């Protein structure tokens, strides 16, 4: 029974991931030279599945739903620094599922590498950060959790340290990441300077009342003398927070690292970063802007801080940059990297399709969340297929995939499902999540967003089809022999494909879950 557990147990999904990382480091310190991939990979997969099980159990056990509505209440930890509500659990499910798929696939991918224990431990530490970020309810915990996501990710991208591409990718990711986290920290400091608090509800109270707040014994109250909030400082702070978030989700104008990092990184890490890390960035954005910076009070303050206009520009620019750049690529992995930038643009509709009074937020934000869940499976699957191709030593260009469908029909069928679902054909959950985003834009009459979504989806069908055409229609060019069919990679790809397809009948359920989660914020 959930309601008999202490409130810290609400963090069990994150704690399970952290404990798994520590177990891996323990194994590594007992036997530093171990390359026992089934032990290390097995522990990681079990740990992430345990985290998934906790999150699923809590979300169905009514955690985050008020007791008056038949739930068991929302665990609030550390004086409101962390809250485990339905939205947090929704994103913990995404993070844990992607981590399970990626660690399962990695058992084959890093089979012959040294430092495997470190590899899995870093993946799980980053996943812990993402899980905590889902529950962060203060700019302080959000910053610490964001760094816990970023720092292992830099190391993971540069993991192949004798491979120049991997090192270069790690360097670029690190440099841009370091700058953007400095910008984010400076933005937080300005928000603190303006409002006197870091907790999201406190910031919201300060904006609504127009007076600087302070936290005494866990409750937010007006500061003595009630000085006014300097809106100009707050506005600059909000813009810089948007900058920090835009880096994490790979949105324009901070998208430059994404193609390099995803192309150079080991393919399972590309899958991890482009699905789970993006979801973590979005949960930060959703919670910050829905809770801490309430649009209706910002607009009514008359200071023109309507951030949804910024997100509209970012969403449209990100969609066009991502999709047009993807259409011109010669390498499959780089095409997928740009497609991931384009999808960040689609999901930004969740923060962009609002009216100035905040109407339509529940619909558009839940559409963004539902798309992130579907995307978590289809995009991870597509990158894991690329990992499989790298495992076989198939080249990186579109032509190198020619005729692959005859040698590996099962994996190629799964890849076809992923790609068409990413494009938005009704072969996977991607069709419904895009349709839901589309209806969210129409609901508030955001015609420019709706048009950008349709144009870019149509364009994306072109470049996704190039891969499908290469796999099934073209004749194989060189002589290529596939000797082994790695179990771990295959299991991960097929499970991702099955879930993608199952999300067609299950989408209604996912979207109502997401809608409820946003309503309860």
């Amino acid at each position, binding site marked *: 029974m959930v309601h008999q557990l202490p409130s810290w147990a609400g963090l069990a999904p994150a704690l399970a991931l952290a404990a798994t990382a520590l177990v891996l480091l323990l194994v590594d310190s007992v036997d530093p030279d171990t390359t026992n991939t089934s032990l290390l990979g097995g522990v990681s997969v079990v740990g992430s599945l345990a985290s998934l099980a906790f999150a699923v159990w809590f979300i169905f056990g009514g955690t985050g739903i008020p007791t008056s509505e038949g739930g068991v209440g929302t665990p609030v930890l550390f004086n409101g620094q962390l809250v485990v509500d339905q939205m947090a659990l929704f994103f913990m499910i995404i993070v844990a599922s992607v981590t399970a798929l990626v660690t399962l696939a990695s058992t084959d991918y890093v089979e012959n590498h040294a430092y495997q224990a470190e590899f899995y431990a870093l993946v799980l530490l980053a996943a812990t950060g993402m899980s905590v970020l889902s529950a962060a309810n203060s700019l302080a915990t959000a910053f610490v959790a964001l760094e816990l996501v970023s720092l292992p990710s830099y190391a993971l991208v540069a993991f192949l340290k004798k491979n120049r591409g991997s090192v270069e990718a790690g360097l670029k990711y690190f*440099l841009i990441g370091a700058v953007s986290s400095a910008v984010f920290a*400076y933005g937080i400091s300005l928000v603190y300077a303006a409002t*006197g*608090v870091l907790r999201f509800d406190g910031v919201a109270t300060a904006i609504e009342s127009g007076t600087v707040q302070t936290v005494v014994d866990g409750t937010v109250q007006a500061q003595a003398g009630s000085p006014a909030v300097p809106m100009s400082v707050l506005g600059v702070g909000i813009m810089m927070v948007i900058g920090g978030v835009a880096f994490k989700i790979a949105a324009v104008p901070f998208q430059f690292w994404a193609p390099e990092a995803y192309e150079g990184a080991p393919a399972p890490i590309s899958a991890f970063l482009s699905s789970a890390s993006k979801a973590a960035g979005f949960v930060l954005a959703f919670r910050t802007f829905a809770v801490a910076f309430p649009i209706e009070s910002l607009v009514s303050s008359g200071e023109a801080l309507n951030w949804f206009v910024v997100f509209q520009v970012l969403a449209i620019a990100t969609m066009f940059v991502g999709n047009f750049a993807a259409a011109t690529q010669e390498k499959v992995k780089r095409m997928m990297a740009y497609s991931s930038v384009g999808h960040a643009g689609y999901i930004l509709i969740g923060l962009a399709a609002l009216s100035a009074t905040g109407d339509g937020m529940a619909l558009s934000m839940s559409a963004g969340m539902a798309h992130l869940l579907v995307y978590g499976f289809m995009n991870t699957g597509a990158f894991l297929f690329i990992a499989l191709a790298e495992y076989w030593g198939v080249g990186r260009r579109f032509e190198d995939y020619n005729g692959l469908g005859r040698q590996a029909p099962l994996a190629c069928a799964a890849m076809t499902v992923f790609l068409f679902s990413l494009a938005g054909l009704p072969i996977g959950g991607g069709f419904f999540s895009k349709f839901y985003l589309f209806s969210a834009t129409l609901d508030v009459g955001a015609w420019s967003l709706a048009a950008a979504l349709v144009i870019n989806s149509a364009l994306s069908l072109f470049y996704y089809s190039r891969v499908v055409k290469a796999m099934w229609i073209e004749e194989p060019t060189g002589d290529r022999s596939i000797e082994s069919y790695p179990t771990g990679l295959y299991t991960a790809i097929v499970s991702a494909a099955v879930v993608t397809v199952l999300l067609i009948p299950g989408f209604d359920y996912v979207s109502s879950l997401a809608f409820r989660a946003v309503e309860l914020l």
Partner: protein
Amino acid sequence: MIPAELYLLLSAALFCIGLFGILTRRNALVFLMSVELMLNAANINFVAFSLQHGNLTGQVFALFGMALAAAEVAIGIGIILVLYRNFSDVDVTKATTMRW
């Protein structure tokens, strides 16, 4: 008490010096130092406004900020080390095997 605006000016100046360093320097180590300047600009704001607001939230965040900056440098030095081994240089413009 020194007015709060002066602290904001100081931190903004420090932030801009850091940003200028990032945009103009090619040495990865100088790049790291510039990022440190930007992070410390944020810390100045936190400490100054902690005094201004009369609560400790900002000072605690400044401690977090310093710890995270140290962790970031630790990872950064590691990446710069492998950069040097692969490209025999710490010039950030030399690593160009991928083009967009």
